[in-house]
């Protein structure tokens, strides 16, 4: 935890510096007669972020925040495994959308989570993974008229059939 606290503060300080540099593309000063320029607000607020990071580092050095005096690891092996398997699942979910469409990705994600992480039976898993995407399709495309992303060309025939059904 102790090491994590200062590393995170350092990382955020770097990000603040990047934001300051990027805001400086527009005028960051007070233009006389016109008030602040376009970069004024983000620049000085990013400076605020940077100063907060310095204050966090100062508190860390003095051992004022709980994390800075804790010798515990950030997470144990089990914790890391949980976060990586769940977080990774979500990343894979979003990455799959462009390949197998939103509804396909929903189905894969549900199978992965329910069966492999949740240890539910195949019956429950598959019925949810089939019913929910179809339900979502009817809700979004049919009722709400919102088109969700479609996948690579091989998903087209499925969509064409579904559209013929609902319109």
């Amino acid at each position, binding site marked *: 935890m102790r090491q994590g606290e200062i590393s995170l503060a350092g990382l955020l300080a770097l990000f603040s510096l990047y*934001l300051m540099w990027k805001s400086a593309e527009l005028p960051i000063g007070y233009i006389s007669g016109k*008030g602040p320029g376009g970069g004024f607000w983000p620049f000085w607020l990013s400076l605020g972020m940077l100063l*907060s990071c310095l*204050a*966090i580092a100062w508190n860390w050095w003095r051992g004022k925040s709980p994390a800075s005096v804790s010798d515990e690891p*950030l997470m144990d092996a089990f914790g890391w495994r949980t976060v990586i398997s769940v977080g990774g*699942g979500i990343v894979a979910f979003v990455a799959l959308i462009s390949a197998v469409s939103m509804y396909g990705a929903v189905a894969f994600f549900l199978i992965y989570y329910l069966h492999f992480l949740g240890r539910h039976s195949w019956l429950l898993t598959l019925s949810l993974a089939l019913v929910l995407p179809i339900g979502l399709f009817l809700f979004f495309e049919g009722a709400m008229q*919102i088109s*969700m992303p479609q996948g690579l060309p091989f998903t087209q025939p499925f969509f064409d059939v579904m559209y013929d059904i609902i319109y």
Partner: protein
Amino acid sequence: MEVFSFLVSGIFTALEPINIGLILIGVTVGLFIGAMPGLGSVNGVAILLPVTFLVPPASAIIFLAAIYYGAMYGGAISSVTLGIPGASTAVATTFDGRPLALQGRASLALVTAALASFVGGTVATVFFTLFAPLLATVALNFGPPEIFALMLLAFATFVGLGGDDIPKTIFSICFGLVLATVGFDTISGEPRLVLFDIQGFLRGIGFIVLAIGVYGIGEMLWTIEQTRGEITTTNPKMTAKGLVSDTKEAVRRGWKGTWIGSLLGFFVGVLPAAGATPGSLMSYGVAKMVSKTPHEYGNGSPDGVAAPEAANNSASTGAMLPMLTLGIPGSPTTAILLGGMVIWGLTPGPRLFVDQSEFVWGLIGSFYISNLAAVLINLAFIPLFVWMLRMPFTILAPLIFMLSIVGGFAASRSMHDLWLIVIFGIGAFFLRKFDYPLAPAVLAIVLGPIAEPTMRQSLLLSSGDPMIFFTRPVAGPITVIAIFLILLPAFKILRRKREAAAN
């Protein structure tokens, strides 16, 4: 008492069979759309706009207003049961609604939200009926300096909201405000902060992207990691008797927040640039400030649910006022309603009350009926939403993730934003581990886009002289109060230190 004869005839218009049918359908549809994270009243109203070609204009707007109301009630459902604010107006509802749900008191939170919404909506409608033209004049007197002062006040009411770690709270506020400036600078007409030169950032970073990332993904990851996946929300039970006792408790412990929210929400909602979100945030802040037990806030206080919920319903009724009387939309939803009125050949504006009084009063009458219908339908569905919470966590969790992603796309229609949601979610998890409070960042991204342009417009008006915020008759007092409130915690600390030194 001309108003009352108009009102009675308006209520009769709303009670015609076709209209009452449309109200019931509209409220139910709105409730479910609002309960879906990422979808809000604006989606519901936009989709049903074409349908309304089939019925007379008065029925059409009654229908759309019913959807609008239903969705405002529905927003609380997602905040309480899923912990994701479905719309910016329901952010503050999560602060206490979520803790209540985790304590197994989801039904109390939902009943409180429903009742508070009802009171808020009704109080606002009464004000609307009595003072519409007068309030329209007040709204016009709010120029950029006044709106900025009001935003300052909204921030001020939230000073006490952050965690104990002051630098981390300040970091969070600044971070939210900087994110709000990404995209495009209206004042200079130039692209700004297009991060890493990725063109997707041109569209800016919406509130909903940050909120779904932080609450839908970050907070969920944190819960799963903390509880090692063993969590089941302490079995919420739902019986008729429970509902009655919840109602009693909601009234007893939420009435104060309800009144604060109803009054404050309405007045902020009437101002076109502000709208329902600052109204609900300020009501939460004020309710906490005047409360005798402020420590309960954030840990499941019914007042903390009631204040923002009463306010957002009250404010959405308020937002109809500038739309009808001035033809100015106070929110994206009213913007689309306004488009609808143009489609039907009506000209919203100062003459609408005179030229189309039957239409206007029919609508006002329908507010009363819609509100009543919404609270009854909402209460009837509460057992269903509570039942959803009884699902095993290993089923509920993937459903929440799924709704976050699907709803996130529905709200933004952009893959770029979907990736941002994931990045914010994972980032929020680590920030949460190190006790960075994230609610201030979410508030900042809501208020920032109103605060920054109004500040700069004011300074353009005054040729760069900041005294404009102090010398204008309306802006001045608001600014002074806001600054006083911001400095209040510092005074308190100083006094405590001095007392400690004296001892």
